[in-house]
């Protein structure tokens, strides 16, 4: 099963610790844990094609929450466009349906996770959290169905940090741009 599935099962357990009371610490942990389960599921598959465990571990650490969210939002919008006005034929329709479920759930789950972790003004209810965890369980099932499809691999690829995202911000008006630090090179003594 692996770590993501264990994490998701744990999120479900936490969400049911206090079924009749809106116990905020456990509900918040459940939301956060369920999000991280999906986060790690996608990353685990993205690096699964890398044969070397050490390299796979290093690669898994270059994924960023913001970049993955942005790629998911773009994918949802693309698929919405694909289905409007007429959905594609099979088997593409089924693949896109499940990919939409994963990408949309990821975006919503990340926003909920940030609220759960940092916005203490937002109150959560057991039914509400149970539904959110169920949504991520559904995304896991969808991913299991499409994970070997090219569209799913392209989605993972779109989550990789790009050069554009890594570029530093432009200097503030009136301030000189920072000099880049000299890079070490093999030719210098």
């Amino acid at each position, binding site marked *: 099963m692996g770590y993501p599935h264990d994490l998701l099962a744990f999120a479900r357990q936490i969400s049911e610790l206090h079924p009749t009371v809106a116990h905020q610490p456990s509900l918040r942990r459940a939301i956060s844990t369920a999000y991280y389960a999906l986060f790690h599921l996608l990353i685990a598959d993205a690096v699964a094609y890398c044969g070397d465990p050490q390299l796979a571990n290093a690669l898994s650490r270059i994924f960023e929450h913001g970049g993955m969210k942005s790629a998911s939002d773009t994918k949802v919008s693309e698929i*919405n466009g694909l289905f409007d006005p007429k959905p594609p034929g099979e088997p593409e329709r089924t693949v896109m349906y499940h990919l939409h479920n994963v990408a949309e759930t990821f*975006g919503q789950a990340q926003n909920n996770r940030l609220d759960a972790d940092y916005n203490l003004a937002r109150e959560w*209810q057991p039914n509400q959290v149970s539904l959110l965890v169920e949504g991520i369980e559904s995304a896991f099932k969808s991913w299991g169905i499409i994970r070997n499809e090219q569209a799913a691999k392209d989605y993972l690829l779109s989550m990789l940090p790009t050069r554009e995202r890594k570029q530093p911000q432009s200097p503030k008006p009136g301030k000189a741009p920072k000099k880049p630090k000299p890079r070490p090179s093999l030719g210098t003594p």
Partner: protein
Amino acid sequence: MSLMRDNGLVYVARGFAQQQPFLTAIARIATGLPPQVLSVNPTLGNDWNGEPAVYFQIILSDNSVPRSELLAFTKQISQSIVQQLRPLEDWGLLPYFDFLTQSDAARMGHQPTLA
């Protein structure tokens, strides 16, 4: 004295600039949703990544949908709103959805309102 101006483009989402037509469009869509939907309450803001967003709080009447069908039902509602409203494509806002039962909403002090 030199005057420096920042003439960079400022992007304002259409949903922010034209709030009334946006809210009217939501209200029109809300009236066509299934009767189990008691309330659709949109709030404009920015999400955690700083992107312009619309947060929909949707209140469902208690026990009106079997628990085993609730997730599919909520997805059907959110998809129906997205398809009709096109919040990102037409209004520049990322949509977020939060579904609450009537009793949970009351416990949290939310009043049902149709956009």
